[in-house]
């Protein structure tokens, strides 16, 4: 029965990411205008757990993800990865962006192997590893294609492969399917689950769709619907995988979360 619960540090699961009272205030030019975006977020992510953060638009969830990734710094509080404080972007956190953000001048292979190239790996090794992940996301045969030749779903697969190939400690996905149409979105959710089961990693996934959250998550954290973002509730999802969108338990959980939040999906 999905229930509000805390992950117990006494179990033998290691905590991968820890956010400690993270708050964020955005300052406009000169510090005159202050916009509080996050208010005292404390959460932990366990190793190889698939955590989903759900909230409506403009609730700070993207900012939270970017702070975990190191692209933004918290105003107060900090984020620990494997016990060490996060202080900037880095290859140990892989990120998948909502707008794909692929490098348009590079082929699919060029994009996926980019992280490895930056790390100084030899071409042969890079190609092998990148090739493996291109296959994993189901894009075999498209290694030489350019992003502008791909559909939205395919572009996002490249984004996922690119993040995976760099062998990060955690994967951060920022509403990765927001730009896709409904059909492709369902497909990509299934693909994500499949890929993650094939090669497990710690994942923090941000979305505004409760359905998506229930489908993918081991654990769901909901944020309040208005700024500054505050944690609302936590749900553990014990449903067996692969999950069914129309399964009774699935819908029950979905209904429960919907009831508690302002979201409708």
């Amino acid at each position, binding site marked *: 029965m999905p229930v509000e619960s805390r992950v117990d540090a006494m179990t033998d699961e290691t905590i991968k990411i820890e956010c400690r009272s993270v708050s964020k205030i*955005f*300052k*406009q*030019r*000169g*510090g005159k205008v202050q916009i509080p975006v996050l208010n005292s977020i404390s959460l932990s992510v366990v190793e190889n757990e698939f955590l989903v953060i759900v909230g409506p638009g403009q609730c700070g969830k993207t900012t939270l993800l*970017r702070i975990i990734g190191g*692209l*933004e*710094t918290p105003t107060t509080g900090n984020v620990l990865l494997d016990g060490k404080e996060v202080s900037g972007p880095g290859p140990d956190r892989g990120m998948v962006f909502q707008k794909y953000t692929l490098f348009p001048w590079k082929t699919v292979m060029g994009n996926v192997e980019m992280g490895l190239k930056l790390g100084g790996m030899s071409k042969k090794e890079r190609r092998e590893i990148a090739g493996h992940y291109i296959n994993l996301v189901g894009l075999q045969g498209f290694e030489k294609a350019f992003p502008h030749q791909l559909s939205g779903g395919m572009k996002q697969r490249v984004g996922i492969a690119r993040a995976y190939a760099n062998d990060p400690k955690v994967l951060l996905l920022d509403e990765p399917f927001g730009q896709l149409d409904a059909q492709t979105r369902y497909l990509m959710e299934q693909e994500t689950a499949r890929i993650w089961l094939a090669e497990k990693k710690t994942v923090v996934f941000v979305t505004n769709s409760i359905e998506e959250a229930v489908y993918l998550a081991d654990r769901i954290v909901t944020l309040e619907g208005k700024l500054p973002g505050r944690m609302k509730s936590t749900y553990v999802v014990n449903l067996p995988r692969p999950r069914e969108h129309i399964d009774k338990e699935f819908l029950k959980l979905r209904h429960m979360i919907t009831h508690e939040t302002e979201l409708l999906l």
Partner: protein
Amino acid sequence: MESETKLKDPFSLKITPWVSFISFFVVWQLLIDTEIVPRILLASPVEVGKLFIDKLTNPDPDGAVLMTHTMISLLEALLGYVLALVIGIPLGLLMGWFTVAEGLARPLFEMIRPIPPVAWIPLAIFWFGIGLTGKVFIIWACGVVPCVINAYTGVRMTNPTLIQMARTYGASDWQIFINICVPSALPMVFGGLQIALALAWSTLVAAELIAANEGLGYLITMGRRLLRPDMIVLGMVMVGLTGWVIGNIIDRIERRLTAGLERGGAAT
């Protein structure tokens, strides 16, 4: 490159532009004063300033007061420019919408289009001499091109949904043209105006440098003939200044008239 909102610029960054600006003139002045650059090759800022004040009232040695030169140049440029607008914009708009207009006008236009504006000068002088008519013709010929292109593109970029909607109301081709295509093309038309203006002004200067007996280009050429670099620089500065001022004026007019319309043509 930072995703954080920028903090205030450090003071050193704020004064650097001024330092640069002032040093530019100081160095320039010093180059002349210390004779590193011979006086015959370049006039110092002070000398140019003196000449500026002098020429406000003194018609020597080139035959006219500074304002006269400026006004003549402006007159020639603006006359040609306005003619270019008056012919080019309606033509471009019509070409964008009516196949007949495009079919007939396009070949001639495509032949004129690749001709660099300055290349018209010898022909214009041959036909019309070096007076006002010739200059106006040149400016017109080169200004017409961007006006037509931009008006044409502006109409072709009209949101097709708006047109389809108008058709469902039974609007005629002409009504659609006047009420939808033309207003929607305004931002691009103004873009064309800016381009045409810059072109008109620089082409006029070129024409005056080649053959004229009045105007800022003439002033510059006289400066060379009389070995008076201060006249040359004064002429150059006035050219730049005038061009900049009228560019700004057009910009302001544009902003007033297109407030509310999206830049890029499609008013949704």
